[in-house]
């Protein structure tokens, strides 16, 4: 058994005993149940709504767009998405009307008696059709956002290569599939204020959205996060919609309203990972050095702008990978279709472009006859090199060591050669090994953290505790535990004396959204500063000496509170000196720091059943200081499992913009019987940012598995698809097409 000297999960006992209260576990007196009436067509004009006989409509609260007291928008970045559709439909499942009633079954039945008269018009459902403007479904050109990153002279770089190799790659949508569906309870009080309790990642995002819908000042809108059964990005922006809907029903009925989505509804209408398309042109000289990279990257954003511009930004910045390439152009667009809007999902655009680049690296290596690891070693970033945005790398990523570790752990280079011989003897099962080399920027992009200007607080209580105040949410990743570790260490008291306040906009400051691998690194760093500042206050007043025990700390804080009324320390984010970002030209320091990683997969491909099995998976990453090994490993293992699903099993089947396989029966995530062994290793070399030098890790593990696995398939078969997900039937089609050509 491992020796453990780290605290156990703060809310672990209550989760393990079933005492934690998730949103559907709460019942309020006089509570109604709300449901959404949705469009079944992807695009069209709303002609009318009729309420068919057979239902006593007096018993139900009915909300339409005309009932909205403020603006009919869901505020994210642009204001293009209505809270309730009033004239046009832009995607299947778009909400036109809301119903609430005493009994959930009765409201669900009543929903079937509402008839929407919609004059359907043709929709578009692919990036190609959107780019070709087969129909213009958003703005004047279907383009939500476009970026270009330029480094050096790409035309020169391409012509400088002895070989130019092109390739096109695509990735599918992916459902977050948190086990707890979306849900909220809303209450509009007589004094005109709104309170929402719910399963969500970003309380202040929801507060902002509700303020627009109800035209209310912040003090009149309270958002409380209840225990949340997984998010992975899926509960970043969508809670603004379901919260607004429940709040409107409460506003009209004057009663609390609970809205809980069924699994099918959740899968059909809430956000998913953006499908992507990439075209890469790469020039390489005789020594294997990449001389030029021209990367065209596209995302399907769905019907409304939502977060697509930011997802595109991260995908664009990560497209050139952790390689030192003199001449780069990355050109990207997020385009509109009539799919329900795509949104945040762990990795946030990076897994898409990294898949394309890392697959292309293996395709190029094969074409040049170079070992794929050697090819990467020639090109990886070293300290002092610059990224595609011109960011000078201030720390040594240490890729050569990461590659050596992969070799030690898996016998990588030996196997990549010996499998070829072994495969000749085995006509059915072919073995392969492959890897991906990548980085992931921690925290918000560019000046994002400066704009957020997050605030974190610490407050000492009279009864001998210190309360952490932040809006960062615990969604399973361990934020509560990390915060209590950071605060206890900064204050010099035990973790048991630190209480992490429940995120509630009436009680905690805005520490920013729980996204972008930023909670430990950025918010944790503020917390560490708040702790030092609180201790320094106690020392300055003479209540606390240089060396102290926990008892002395609380005696001192008690004295301070007696004399001055309260003991608090609030700290706001300030950009570290030296970070420069040019938003206009996408040049400069895209992220304060990066996690550096090499992931490798060993696979068996059955050429009779076309099944691909991952036999071994190694995830090696340099992430700075590891705050809590068990939690950190849990993040990586969970992310890798999602990445394996992204590559091999999780396929959204679309029909006219609607997900057809909206069940856990036919949208396949890995069970315990399917998941490969996932071996996780941390390097802790560069400890320059974050509390005690801890860099962000939440999204990192989503980036590497898919390209590593498909590269392993290429090693096994000689060639492999340029797309994911690659289910057995997809591989079959690919192999049959390859053998024909």
């Amino acid at each position, binding site marked *: *058994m491992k020796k*453990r000297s780290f605290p*156990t*999960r703060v*809310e*672990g*006992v209550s*989760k*393990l*005993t*079933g*005492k*934690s*209260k*998730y949103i*559907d*576990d709460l019942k309020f007196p006089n509570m109604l149940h709300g449901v959404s009436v949705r469009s079944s067509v992807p695009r069209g004009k709303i002609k009318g709504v009729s309420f068919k006989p057979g239902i006593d409509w007096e018993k139900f609260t009915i909300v339409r767009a005309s009932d909205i007291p403020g603006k009919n928008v869901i505020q994210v970045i642009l204001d293009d998405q209505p809270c309730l559709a009033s004239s046009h439909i832009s995607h299947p499942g778009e909400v036109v009307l809301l119903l609430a009633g005493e009994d959930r*079954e009765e409201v669900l039945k009543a929903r079937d008696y509402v008839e929407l008269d919609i004059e359907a018009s043709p929709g578009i459902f692919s990036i190609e059709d959107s780019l070709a403007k087969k129909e213009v479904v958003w703005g004047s050109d279907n383009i939500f956002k476009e970026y270009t990153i330029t480094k050096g002279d790409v035309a020169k770089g391409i012509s400088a290569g002895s070989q130019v190799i092109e390739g096109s790659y695509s990735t599918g949508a992916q459902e*977050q*599939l*948190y*086990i*707890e*569906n979306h849900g909220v309870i809303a209450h509009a009080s007589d004094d005109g204020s709104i309170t929402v309790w719910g399963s969500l990642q970003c309380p202040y995002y929801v507060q902002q959205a509700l303020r627009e819908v109800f035209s209310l000042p912040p003090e009149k809108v309270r958002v409380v996060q209840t*225990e*949340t*059964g*997984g*998010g*992975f990005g899926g509960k970043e922006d969508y809670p603004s919609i379901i919260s607004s809907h429940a709040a409107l029903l409460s506003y009209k009925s004057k009663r609390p309203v609970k809205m809980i989505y*069924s*699994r099918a509804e959740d899968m059909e209408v809430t956000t998913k990972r953006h499908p992507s398309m990439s075209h890469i042109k790469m020039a390489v000289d005789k020594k294997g050095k990449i001389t030029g990279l021209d990367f065209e990257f596209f995302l399907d954003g769905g019907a409304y702008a939502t977060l697509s511009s930011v997802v595109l930004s991260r995908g664009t910045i990560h497209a050139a990978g952790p390689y030192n390439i003199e001449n780069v152009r990355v050109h990207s667009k997020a385009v509109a279709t009539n799919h329900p809007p795509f949104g945040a999902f762990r990795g946030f655009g990076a897994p898409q472009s990294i898949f394309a680049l890392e697959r292309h690296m293996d395709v190029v290596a094969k074409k040049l006859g170079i070992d794929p690891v050697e090819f990467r070693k020639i090109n990886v970033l070293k300290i002092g090199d610059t990224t595609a945005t011109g960011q000078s790398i201030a720390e040594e990523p240490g890729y050569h060591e990461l590659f050596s570790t992969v070799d030690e752990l898996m016998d990588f280079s030996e196997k990549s050669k010996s499998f070829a011989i072994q495969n000749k003897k085995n006509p059915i099962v072919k073995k392969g090994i492959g890897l991906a080399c990548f980085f992931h920027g921690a925290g918000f992009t560019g000046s994002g953290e400066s704009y957020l200007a997050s605030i974190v607080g610490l407050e000492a209580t009279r009864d001998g505790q210190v309360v952490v105040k932040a809006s960062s949410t615990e*969604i*399973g*990743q*361990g934020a509560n535990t990390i915060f209590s570790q950071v605060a206890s260490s900064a204050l010099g008291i035990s973790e048991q004396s630190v209480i992490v306040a429940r995120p509630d906009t009436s009680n905690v400051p805005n520490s920013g959204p729980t996204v972008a691998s930023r909670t430990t690194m950025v918010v944790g760093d503020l917390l560490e500063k708040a702790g030092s500042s609180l201790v320094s206050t106690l020392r300055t007043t003479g209540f606390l000496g240089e060396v102290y025990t926990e008892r002395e700390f609380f005696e001192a804080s008690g004295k301070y509170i007696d004399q001055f009324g309260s003991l608090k320390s609030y700290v706001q984010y300030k950009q570290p000196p030296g970070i420069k970002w040019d938003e206009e030209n996408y040049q400069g320091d895209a992220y304060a720091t990066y996690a550096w990683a090499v992931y490798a997969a060993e696979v068996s491909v059955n050429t009779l059943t076309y099944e691909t099995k991952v036999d071994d998976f190694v995830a090696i990453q340099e992430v700075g200081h590891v705050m809590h090994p*068990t*939690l950190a*490993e*849990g993040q990586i*293992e*969970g*992310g*890798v*499992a*999602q990445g394996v699903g992204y590559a091999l099993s999780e396929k959204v089947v679309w029909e006219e913009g609607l997900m057809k396989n909206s*069940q*856990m*029966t036919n949208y396949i*995530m*890995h*069970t*315990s*019987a*399917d*998941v490969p*062994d*996932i071996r996780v290793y941390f390097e802790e070399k560069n400890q320059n940012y974050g509390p005690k030098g801890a860099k962000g890790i939440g999204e990192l593990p989503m980036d590497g598995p898919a390209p590593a696995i498909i590269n392993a398939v290429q090693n096994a078969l000689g060639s492999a698809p340029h797309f994911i997900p690659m289910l057995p039937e997809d591989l079959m089609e690919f192999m049959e097409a390859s053998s024909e050509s």
Partner: protein
Amino acid sequence: MSHKEEFTLKINGETKVFLAHPMERLLDTIRSDENLTGTKEGCGEGECGACSVLVNGKLVNSCLIPISQVASSEIETIEGVANSESLAPIQKSFLENGGAQCGFCTPGMVLAAISLLRDNPAPNLEEVKTALSGNLCRCTGYKKIFESTLICSQMEDQQ
């Protein structure tokens, strides 16, 4: 669901009488009638296992079982696993080994592990993987759940 009948169930050792429609889901009896909200609903169609409980010692998805089918049975939910003083060994092992993250699949997962360890006190990894395969977890990638279960099986005071 207007027609109602009386059903007697023993839940976590206590005998309870319910007036319910024969087709009422056991999940609703547990969550709504009995207010034992540790048992979760994740999909409502027997795929995710978040609603797992033990009926006469057997692991079932309570979203698929009508109350009439389990009349007079003994039901164990997550609330009955720990005693008031301390966690059961399996809960302690999940806590110490990172077996729970968001916690939503956790009650069902713990009951699935209990069910396995009662039948097979010293399972190997493959047996653990198979026994837990009806319970989906999106957070952990399962590895820490396997470790939690195996380490518990090696503890002396395992029940």
